[in-house]
């Protein structure tokens, strides 16, 4: 079979992957090769094509063109085999909240044919890993958002997948919970040697990854380690907060011959030596400045540099609201 003769060690691989919806090109020719055991980050704003790509890799969507291999198997030719080798943590919760944590895991173990002899120990093991073993017998509806996400991660690895796909695993969680989730994920990779493929639009999280692909408008615009990507920005980043963005931009362009990037109420400048540049800048600028920040480049700056726009945090607001409404309605007797 052709899929076995592929000369690669990549555990996730795409070649010229394309997905179109009518005339809209959601994914336009993506090439990727994710190495086994890697934490691979897929970074981009909402609507960039992240979720579409991950859905194709998980066999939930069929690509319009190109090829995608997961664990060496073509996702369109043998989706069943791909599914049995991957774990998924969705952006939206997919637990049964009237069942207990343990029942949710039992359901999954049974569905994925985890050997009966293993089942109990494995379930206990993953519950312990995400520190939910004490709540194993509680119905999931009593869990907080962070606990649910942890349970989903536990469920995602229950059947020994080779790759765990996580679509925005920390979306809508508070910073503390996000950090804990990350701790679990790194712990998981250390213990299970599992490959993690994740999407995020949190820039600070991307730094936890081994390698990152930045995607915008359906194409990969940069790929590398966090350090490599940061090196693309070259030097320090100075952010000048001012009410007169246009005037400040103009002055910096004229006086220092630099190319500043204007945001709503601030101007960003990249310079090789930030510390010596700030005093000069302050001497020459005549517009009122409320604050100046000097920082080492972050992935945020990389994204801004590559696309000319900042990644904004947009929550899953609408979807969550709808879900809450639905649950209220069903409780108040919408269902007999």
């Amino acid at each position, binding site marked *: 079979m052709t899929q076995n003769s592929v000369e690669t060690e990549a555990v996730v691989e795409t070649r010229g992957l394309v997905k179109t919806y009518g005339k809209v090109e959601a994914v336009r020719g993506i090439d990727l090769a994710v190495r086994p055991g890697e934490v691979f980050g897929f970074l981009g704003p909402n609507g960039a094509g992240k979720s579409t790509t991950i859905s194709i890799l*998980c*066999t*939930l*969507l*069929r690509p319009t063109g190109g090829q995608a291999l997961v664990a060496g198997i073509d996702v369109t030719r043998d989706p*069943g*085999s791909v*599914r*049995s*080798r991957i774990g*998924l943590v*969705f952006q*939206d*919760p*997919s*637990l*049964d*909240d*009237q*069942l207990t944590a343990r*029942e949710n895991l039992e*359901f*999954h173990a*049974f*569905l*994925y*044919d985890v050997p009966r002899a*293993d089942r109990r*120990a*494995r379930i206990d*093991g*993953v519950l*312990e*890993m995400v520190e939910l073993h004490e709540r194993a017998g509680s119905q999931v509806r009593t869990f907080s958002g962070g606990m649910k996400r942890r349970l989903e991660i536990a*469920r995602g690895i229950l*059947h*020994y*997948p*080779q790759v765990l796909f996580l679509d925005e695993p920390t979306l809508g969680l508070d910073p503390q919970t996000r950090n804990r989730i990350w701790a679990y994920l790194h*712990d998981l990779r*250390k*213990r*299970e*040697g*599992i490959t993690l493929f994740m999407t995020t639009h949190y820039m600070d999280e991307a730094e936890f990854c081994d390698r990152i692909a930045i995607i915008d408008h359906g194409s990969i615009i940069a790929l590398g380690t966090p350090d490599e990507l940061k090196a693309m920005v070259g030097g320090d980043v100075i952010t000048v907060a001012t009410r007169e963005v246009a005037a400040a931009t103009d002055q910096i362009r004229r006086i220092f011959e630099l190319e500043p990037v204007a945001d709503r109420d601030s101007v960003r400048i990249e310079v090789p030596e930030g510390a010596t540049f700030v005093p000069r800048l302050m001497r020459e600028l005549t517009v009122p400045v409320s604050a100046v920040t000097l920082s080492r480049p972050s992935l945020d700056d990389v994204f801004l540099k590559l696309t000319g726009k900042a990644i904004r945090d947009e929550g899953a607001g609408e979807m969550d609201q709808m*879900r809450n409404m*639905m*649950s209220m*309605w*069903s409780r108040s*007797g*919408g*269902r*007999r």
Partner: protein
Amino acid sequence: MSVESIPVASSRRRQSVDIRWATVRAIYMIWRRDLVRFWRDRTRVIGALVQPLLFLVILGTGLSSALRGAGGGGFRGGIDYTTFIYPGIIGMAVLFSSIFSGMSIIWDREFGFLKEVLVAPIDRSAVAIGKTLGGATQACIQGLILLVLAPFVGVKLTPLAVLALIGLIFCLAFSLSAVGVAIAARMRSMMGFQFVLNFLVQPAFFLSGALFPLSGLPAWMTALTRLDPLAYGVDPIRRVVLGASGVPGPVLDQLSMTFGGHVVPVALEVAILLAFGLVLMLVALLNFRHQD
């Protein structure tokens, strides 16, 4: 946390899952999950019995009094009206419970759980089959609960009659759950729920012969009643229930479903019911197979 606490590492990763067996297991798990939820949600189980009881006790008592007052001798063939509608009320409980259990797929979709099943290495037909069987079992239990009321409406059930009723109620519950699943397979939200209730479920109830005999109706209505799947469930249930309480055969025939003046045999009614259910389950099954 110790590194050893997870028993198995990468070496134990299995190669593949046998899709056919996984599908059978999935059907069982989906069915079992529905029953666990049913058992856990006992207020809903009791709540679902309120409407049938209102019909039986209030409408039944009211109309039997009115009928007695009007002509004397009770309902057709001297049967008490409450006794007459009792099998129809069982059908009603099964109807509502089946359709709503089947349609609970919309909730599963809404709250994400369906996704867990749809991405599993199984054939998606498991969803349609598992949900239909789950809904059927729940509705069957609802219907059977109403059997305990038999003595209060003047019906004496024999063990044989109870066995026959379990079979009949299950057939009815199966077919109607398949309807619910087939409707829900294409629905993405509960927006259409009210529509389904008003344009399908209520008419199906009123046309089923639950509240009046299906003979001697105007032609247009006769035609509609013969298209109602519930009618093919209520009629055999009524024959068993009334037969067990000693209503003579000729009187029963007078109240029964007819095709062109001939009484339809119970076996044919059950066959129609099951065929209908299987076709709808097939519709639902194909729907789930072909969605992203």
